[in-house]
C-alpha cells in the first residue's frame, strides 16, 4: 500500500473515532441539563441522580474527545500539509471560532462537574446549558469547514492557487446549512436512542426501576423526535448534493447513465466494470423526485465524468444504503414509540418495544459513521471538491504505515478502556438505584447526598 493510502486511512479512523466522542459531547450535555431542569422543577432526587450519571459519562468522554480532537488538529498538518498551506487561510476562521467553543465548553464543564456545591442552582444549570450549547457550536463550526471542502466558495482560482480569499464567504458554502442541520440532528438522535437502549436494557431486568424509567423517558423524548426529523434533513442535504456535487449523487445512487426520471435504488452492488448496479430494487422516477423535486428531472450519471474523478462508487453506495436503512428503522421505532405514548399517555414500556429499542440503539452511531464515509469517500479524489486533489495534499514524509499502525493500536486500546469504564458505570448504577428505591423518602434524600458518585469527584 502506498503512503497516500495510509494517510487517508489514518485520517479516516482518527475522525471516525473522534466523531463518537464529539456526538456524545453534543448530546449528553443536553440530556443532562434536561434532567437537571426536571430535578429543579419537580424536586425529585432521582432526576438529580440521572443528571450526575450522565455528567460522569460526559466527563470521561470529553477527555477522550479533547485528546482525539487535538490529534486531529495536528494531523491536518502532519498528513495534509499541502492542503493546509493551500486552504488554511480559507477555513481557518471556523476552526478559530471552534476554538472558542472548546474554551467555553471546557470551562463550564469544569464548573458543572466540580461545582455542584460551589455555585448556586440556577448558575449550575446555566453552566450546563452553556456546555450543551458550545458542544453544538463546535460541531457547527467544524462541519462548516467540512462543507467548504465539499462545495468550496469564497476565493478565486489563479493558476492552481486561491486568491481574493474571503473567509466569511467561505463559511457560507451552500453545503454548510444542510450539513450542519443533518449533523446536529444526527448527534441527538444517535446518542438519545443509544442511551435509551441502555436504560431499556436495565428496565427489562427490573421493570419497576424508577431511575431507568425516568432516564428512558428523557432519552426517548429526545431521540425519537430527532430520529423522525433526520430523514427530512437528509432530504434537504441530498438536494444540495444533487446541485453542487452531481458526481457524488451519482455514486450514492449507483447511477451510471445520465437519464430523466431516474429511479431510486434500494440495495444493489454498483459495478464500475460493467457500469451497472444489479441486485437493486428500483422505484421509478423517485430519485429525480427526491433530488430535484421533479419526476422528470435529469440526473447526471457517472459516465458523464472522466474515470479519474470517480469516487469509490461501491463503497459510497453501500455506506449510503446503510445510513438510510438505519434512518428508516430508527424512524419506524420512533413512530411506534409515539403511537404507544399517544395511546397510553405514559412511558412506552411493553417488552416488545423495549427489546426493539435495545436492538436499534447502535444504529444511530452506525449511520453517523457510514454517513461520513459517504461524504468523505464520495468527495474523492478531491480534498477540496473540484480544485485540489488528495494526492497533491499529502505529506512527502515516507513510512506512513508506522504512525498509522501506532495510532490505530492506541485508539483501539482507548476504545476498549472507555467501553470498560462505561460498563463499570452502568453496573454501578444498579446498586445505587436499588439503594434509592428500598429506602424511605427521608433517608433517600440523605443517601443521595452521601452516595459515592454524589460528591464532587
Amino acid at each position, binding site marked *: 500500500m502506498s503512503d497516500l493510502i495510509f494517510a487517508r486511512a489514518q485520517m479516516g479512523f482518527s475522525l471516525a473515532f473522534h466523531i463518537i466522542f464529539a456526538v456524545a459531547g453534543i448530546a449528553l450535555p443536553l440530556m443532562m441539563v434536561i434532567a437537571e431542569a426536571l430535578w429543579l422543577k419537580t424536586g425529585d432526587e432521582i432526576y438529580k441522580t440521572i443528571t450526575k450519571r450522565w455528567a*460522569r459519562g460526559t*466527563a*470521561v468522554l470529553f*477527555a*477522550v474527545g*479533547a*485528546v*482525539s*480532537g*487535538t*490529534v486531529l*488538529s*495536528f494531523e*491536518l*498538518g*502532519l498528513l495534509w*500539509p499541502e492542503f*493546509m*498551506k*493551500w*486552504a*488554511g*487561510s*480559507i*477555513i*481557518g*476562521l471556523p*476552526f*478559530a*471560532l*471552534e*476554538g*472558542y467553543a*472548546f*474554551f*467555553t465548553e*471546557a*470551562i*463550564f*464543564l*469544569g*464548573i458543572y*462537574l*466540580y*461545582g455542584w456545591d*460551589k*455555585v448556586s442552582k440556577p448558575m449550575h444549570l446555566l453552566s450546563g446549558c452553556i456546555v450543551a450549547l458550545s458542544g453544538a457550536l463546535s460541531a457547527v463550526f467544524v462541519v462548516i469547514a467540512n462543507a467548504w471542502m465539499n462545495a468550496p466558495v469564497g476565493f478565486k482560482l489563479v493558476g492552481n492557487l486561491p486568491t481574493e*480569499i474571503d*473567509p466569511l464567504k467561505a463559511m457560507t458554502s451552500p453545503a454548510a446549512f444542510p450539513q450542519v442541520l443533518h449533523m446536529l440532528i444526527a448527534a441527538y438522535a444517535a446518542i438519545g436512542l443509544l442511551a435509551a437502549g441502555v436504560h431499556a436494557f436495565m428496565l427489562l431486568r427490573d421493570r419497576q426501576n424508577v431511575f431507568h424509567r425516568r432516564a428512558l423517558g428523557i432519552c426517548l423524548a429526545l431521540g425519537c423526535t430527532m430520529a423522525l426529523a433526520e430523514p427530512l434533513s437528509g432530504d434537504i442535504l441530498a438536494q444540495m448534493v444533487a446541485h453542487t456535487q452531481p458526481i457524488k449523487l451519482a455514486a450514492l445512487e449507483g447511477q451510471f447513465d445520465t437519464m430523466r426520471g431516474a429511479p431510486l435504488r434500494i440495495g444493489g452492488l454498483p459495478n464500475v466494470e460493467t457500469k451497472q448496479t444489479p441486485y437493486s430494487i428500483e422505484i421509478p422516477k423517485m430519485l429525480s423526485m427526491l433530488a430535484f423535486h421533479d419526476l422528470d428531472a435529469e440526473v447526471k450519471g457517472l459516465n458523464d465524468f472522466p474515470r479519474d474523478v470517480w469516487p469509490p462508487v461501491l463503497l459510497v453506495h453501500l455506506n449510503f444504503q446503510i445510513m438510510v436503512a438505519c434512518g428508516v428503522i430508527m424512524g419506524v421505532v420512533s413512530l411506534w414509540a409515539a403511537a404507544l405514548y399517544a395511546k397510553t399517555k405514559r412511558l412506552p414500556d411493553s417488552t416488545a418495544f423495549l427489546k426493539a429499542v435495545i436492538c436499534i440503539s447502535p444504529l444511530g452511531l452506525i449511520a453517523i459513521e457510514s454517513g461520513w464515509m459517504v461524504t468523505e469517500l464520495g468527495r474523492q479524489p478531491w480534498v477540496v471538491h473540484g480544485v485540489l486533489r488528495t494526492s497533491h495534499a499529502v*505529506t*512527502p*514524509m515516507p513510512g506512513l504505515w508506522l*504512525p498509522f499502525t*501506532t495510532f490505530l493500536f*492506541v485508539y483501539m486500546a*482507548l476504545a476498549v*478502556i472507555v467501553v470498560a*469504564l462505561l460498563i*463499570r*458505570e452502568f453496573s454501578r448504577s444498579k446498586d445505587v438505584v436499588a439503594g434509592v428505591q428500598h429506602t424511605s423518602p427521608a433517608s433517600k434524600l440523605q443517601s443521595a447526598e452521601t452516595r459515592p458518585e454524589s460528591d464532587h469527584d
Partner: protein
Amino acid sequence: MIDAALYLAIIMLISLNIYALLGGADYGGGVWDLFAVGKRAKEQRELIAGAIGPIWEANHVWLILVVVILFSAFPAAFSLLSISLHVPLTLLLLGIIARGTAFTFRKYDSHKDHVQRRWGRIFAMASLITPVLLGIVVGAISQGKVSADIAGKTFSQVYIDPWCTPFCFAVGGFALVLFSFLAAVYSTVYAPTEELKTDFQRRALGAQVACAILALLVFILAEHSAPGLKDSLAHSSWSLLLQGATAACAISSSIALFKRKFHAARFFAAGQVTLILWGWGLAQYPYMIRPDMTINNAQGAASTQTLLLAAIASGALLLFPSFYFLLKVFKHKIDQPINK
C-alpha cells in the same frame, strides 16, 4: 505601524505563555506524581490530582489555539513545521493522548490501589516525556535547520536532523524542569498542611537549581547550534534588560521560597517563566522558523488575518470573564483541595 501578522504572532506567544503557565504546570504536576516519595507520597499525589482536575481540558485549549492561529494566519509555516518536525510532533501527540486519558481514567476507574497505580504511572511517564518534546519543537524552530527545500535530500536530512541535536534536547530538558518548577511552586501554595508545603518547597528549590543548570547548557549549546538566536540574545540591549529581569525574578522566587512566602514565590516563578518565553520570542523575531521563514513570508491572506483578529478580540471578551469565573469558583477548592 504594526501589522495584523505581527499582532497574531504576539497573540500566539501570549497563548503559548498561558499554556506554559497553566498547562505546563499540569505536566509538572505529573512529574511530581512520578517522584512522589516518602510517607506523604499519597497526599502529594492527591494534591496534584486535585489541582489539575477541574481545569486541564481548559488549559489544554491554549495549545489548540496556537495551532489554529498558526494554520489560519501562517499556513506556510504550519505546513513546513508539520513536514520537517513530523516525528517529534507525532510523538508529542502520543504523549498528549496518554497523559490526558490516563489522568481521566485514573479518576473514573476503580479506586483500588493497583488500578490507580497503573494509570498513575502512564500519566506520570507521559507528563515527563511530553514537555521534552514540546521543548524539542521550540528548539528546532530556533536553531535554523528546518528547510522547505527537500529535493534530493536523504530521509534523515529532512526529517531527523532539524531536531535531533543536543541543543534541541537541552531545550526539551529546560522546558521539563521549568514546568516541574512551576508545578512545585504552585503546590506550595495549594498544599493544605505545613509538611506538604515543605515537601514542595524542597522540590521547587531543587527544580530551580536544575533550571539554572539547563539554562546555562542551552546557552552554551546555542553558540554552536543556534548562532542566529544566540546572537540576538547576546548582542541587543533589550535582551540584556530582559535577562536581567529574568535573573531578578529567579532570585526573588528562590528567596521567597526560602522564606516560605509562597504566594510571592508563585508570582515571581510565573514571571520568570514568562520572561524566558518572551526573551525567546524577541530573540526569534522576525523569524517564525529559522532560517528561512519569517512572520512576513509565512503569512496567508490578509483578509483572514483581519477577521481572525476580530474573532479573537471578541472571543476574548467572552473568554476572560469565563476563565476568571472558573478560577474564582475553584480558588477555594484549589487552595485547600482534597477533603475526602
